[in-house]
């Protein structure tokens, strides 16, 4: 009865069902709307960054598939309390992992449990689902209002 792939793991299914930090943030210092016109995934990522460049709070709102929602949820949990510089480095690692350019089982990384998205590399059409909110988060840091992935 089990599926022989690592994509829909229990953690991902759980975060899809009960997304964490799933709320708007009126007091956000940074936000960005991310949209994939091909599949309709649509999320806004909110960040509250203090004077020391630390992410004090992070949240997201929107709709889309289980992969995009779980990835957004896990991302927000991971980023809380991190320095801005660190988030950019982790984004780079995450991006390489989902593209299959970095194997978290073989190489050193700072992804923690985000490494469970490594199975996505077997599903090229779903890579953008996993990375959409990461792109939005970077867009927010760079003061973009909207980003799209195509």
């Amino acid at each position, binding site marked *: *009865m089990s599926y022989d792939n690592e994509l829909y793991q229990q953690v991902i299914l759980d975060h899809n*069902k009960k997304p964490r930090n799933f709320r708007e943030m009126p007091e956000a210092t940074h936000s960005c709307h991310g949209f994939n016109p091909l*599949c309709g995934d649509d999320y806004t990522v909110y960040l509250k960054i203090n004077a020391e460049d630390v992410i004090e709070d992070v949240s997201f709102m929107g709709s889309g*598939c289980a992969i995009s929602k779980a990835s957004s949820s896990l991302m927000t949990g991971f980023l809380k309390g991190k320095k801005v510089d660190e988030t950019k480095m982790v984004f780079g690692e995450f991006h390489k992992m989902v593209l299959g350019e970095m194997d978290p089982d073989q190489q050193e990384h700072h992804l923690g449990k985000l490494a469970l998205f490594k199975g996505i590399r077997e599903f090229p059409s779903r890579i953008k*689902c996993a990375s959409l909110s990461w792109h939005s988060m970077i867009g927010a840091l760079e003061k973009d209002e909207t980003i799209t992935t195509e």
Partner: protein
Amino acid sequence: MPDTDTLTTAKPPFDVDQIRAEFPVLSQTVHGKPLIYLDNAATTQKPRRVIEKVRQFDSEEYGTVRRGSYRLSERATQMFEDVRHKVAGLFNAASHKEIIFTSGTTQAINLVAYSFGKAFVKAGDEIIISNIEHHANTVPWQVLCEDRGAHLKVIPVNDRGELIMEEYQKLLSPKTRIVSVNHVSNALGTVNPIKEITRLAHEAGAKVLIDGAQSTPHMKIDVQDIDCDFYTFSGHKMYAPSGIGGLYGKYDVLKEMPPYVTGGDMIRHVTLEKTLYADPPARFEAGTPAITQVMGLGEAIDYLQEIGLDKIAEYEHALLEYGTRLLSEIDGLNIVGTAAHKASILSFHIDVIHPHDVVTLLDQDGIAVRGGHHCAQPTMQRFCVPATTRASASFYNKYEELDVLAASVRRAIKLFS
């Protein structure tokens, strides 16, 4: 709730296993499971004889058409024009001169929107489409309306996905220049009453285009009986190669229309000052056409006619009814598009799973279905869903494959519940 064990299945009017054996693609496995190809509304697989025809033509008979006066070219030209006659025969056009080869339905509709629009649509005029059109039958008209200062009117649909004909009649007016609707909706499967739509449009003095991309693989088409002014089709959805399709147009209408794309082969005489255009269909076929693909199209038409489009329609309808009953039994699944008249398209929405996750999970079971807005975002907006999962059956599909589909959907729902 009907019990699956008691579901009756009508005996197919042909040997489906024998038909499947003619499609090499179908015999493979995907993720270790037999491929179940149910994305036929997007594109159809090719029978061996079409594949072989293309190979044989390119290997032995390839030459330019309508240009050379040597043996190869003359023979290729003859074969090319023979296919035009075949298309005319397939759709019962009054003349082969009414058949224009295009890359497919998208280009055919763009041709009409541009050319007919340029000649006949002016500021304040109106164009009517429906709420369940493919983007290919929406965007060209939006562009034309913007360009000419015309207005786009939209026929609404009811909750079953059927056009509301009373509302359509209210939209028709002396300002209506053209009505452009699909014969079969790609997103919902609705079969539209195109004969009645055409009659009413003609009463109002408007021309009619029928987008036949989804209908032509499933049923017999008689353009003279429909009486439409234009009818479009896409070869790749009717077991022919991609990159070829066409436009039927009444000759009297076509001959009043200016060229769409200009260049070689669509002229009568060119000087540096002025060009006289050729008559239709050549006027609308600038440049070297998709010669090899046309040969494949001709072979696909022979194939479909040998099986019989009536038999195809009968069996695909049986598949639709069987699939509809199987999916209706699944809790949490809603079929989107429940028109009384439908082609074998099953679009559905599952409360707990996004269509893209459904597609990925079904793929694990070897099933190829489409998830998304099906290039029909206004349709999705009408039914308040971001996207649907769509299973579309062909005469090479089997009842058993729909059983696997239903079981796979249940398994996906279980995982997400």
